[in-house]
């Protein structure tokens, strides 16, 4: 029987996603190097420690701009409704492999992750600019820079932990990675994990 597929992400959306993803990995590696002395050698991802310090913020700006594009693509799909609250309250059931609620394009967990990422990105951008030498840090008082460095590290920790969950969820729910690589999902995938979205896409009632 021929596999029935639904387009979930266009080529432009996939490229957008992977720009953010590659930037994130480079930033997380170099950022952890600045944060943990024992991992300082990870600055090698950009060649030398000095280069890592210079390049990190520029990559950060690229990631933010690319993420901002994603924000405008997806924010209206991520408004939290009562189904999502139900999903979040039943997260244990979900984790045992059973679907909860009449989920649309995104479930409660994905929406929560979306807003967590938005918050972290915003904090990282603002605090990153404040701490950015030699261009911007000089315009801010030292106590403000200290707060920015603390906030930057906090937000980065939140984002890294969040992305680990994001990547794991994609790996756990089989057929998901294909959506962001090939752009398509099977009808069975859509029907099981995003039934309301499945009906919207196919016009079917069941």
């Amino acid at each position, binding site marked *: 029987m021929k596999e029935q597929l639904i387009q979930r992400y266009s080529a432009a959306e996939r490229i957008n996603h992977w720009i953010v993803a590659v930037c994130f990995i480079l930033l997380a590696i170099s950022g952890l190097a600045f944060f943990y002395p024992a991992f*300082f050698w990870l600055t090698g991802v950009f060649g030398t420690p000095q280069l890592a310090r210079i390049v990190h913020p520029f990559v950060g700006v690229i990631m933010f701009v690319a993420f901002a594009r994603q924000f405008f693509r997806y924010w209206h799909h991520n408004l939290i409704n009562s189904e999502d609250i139900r999903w979040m309250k039943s997260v244990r059931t979900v984790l045992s*492999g059973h679907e909860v609620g009449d989920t649309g394009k995104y479930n409660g967990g994905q929406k929560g992750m979306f807003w967590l990422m938005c918050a972290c990105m915003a904090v990282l951008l603002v605090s990153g600019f404040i701490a950015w*030498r030699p261009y911007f*840090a000089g315009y801010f008082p030292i*106590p403000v820079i200290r707060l920015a460095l*603390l906030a930057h590290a906090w937000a980065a*920790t939140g984002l890294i932990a969040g992305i680990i969950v994001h990547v794991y969820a994609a790996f756990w*729910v089989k057929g998901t990675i294909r959506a962001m690589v090939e752009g398509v999902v099977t009808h*069975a*995938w859509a029907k099981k994990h995003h039934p309301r979205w499945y009906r919207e896409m196919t016009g079917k009632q069941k």
Partner: protein
Amino acid sequence: MALQSLDITRRSASPTASPQARKTIEIAKLIDVSTCIGCKACQVACSEWNDIREEVGHNIGVYDNPTDLSADAWTVMRFAEEESNGKLEWLIRKDGCMHCADPGCLKACPSPGAIIQYSNGIVDFHQENCIGCGYCISGCPFNVPRISQKDNKAYKCTLCSDRVSVGQEPACVKTCPTGAIQFGSKEDMKDVAATRVADLKTRGYANAGLYDPQGVGGTHVMYVLHHADKPEQYSGLPKDPAISTTVQLWKGWLKPLATIGIAAAGLFGFFHYITVGPNRPDDDDEHAAANPAAKQEDKA
């Protein structure tokens, strides 16, 4: 350098201990503000010895020149006009690195070996390892380190670590014409300070005292102040300097919390997968989706 490296007690961003076998005498520079005449010979000596030349600036209406510390000015005289005891006082303070026993710069620095602390108390920057992030500026309670606009490396007073390592006093000490700057073991400098403080007290400075702030574990540059109760009068010398709580949270508390958070996310995924296993669309669903007419009952 090989032998001198034995005298390094702490390196920035280095989780394991430095060699501890050798013990050297703890040294200190004592700046007696009450005998300083503001001649700036120390600034010139510093510039000469270290081969650094700040650009000639502009007169801003006071004697301060250069007006601030920079990558090319590791010590500057700060002139403050203050009223106390019902008269005008001209308080002159030689500003520069205090060489804290608990250095905020070293705590904040992310680059291994870019900031080192010798067992004699000197805190030194190794610019070859400096990455120019400016974390030391955030760590310092005295606002001392400066990043060069030419090479993006941080600079500050070395306490003439090169001279001290061969048994000489720092250049500023050598040149001071009034003896307002002295150098020796920290114990000796405290004794000298005690004598000066006692003398100042007999001259009507009841609050004279030694500035050796314990919030940073004491410093290896100390001041004799006529108004030790109000150090802020001396161009903003902090009263109770300590490494900022923000920096402590960032460089202290957050590290274990972040480790736990990131590890928890990773471990959760691992154990979830090996216990619950992958989440696949059921074969029934595949069939049902392919053939909408087929019966479908397993709605959760």
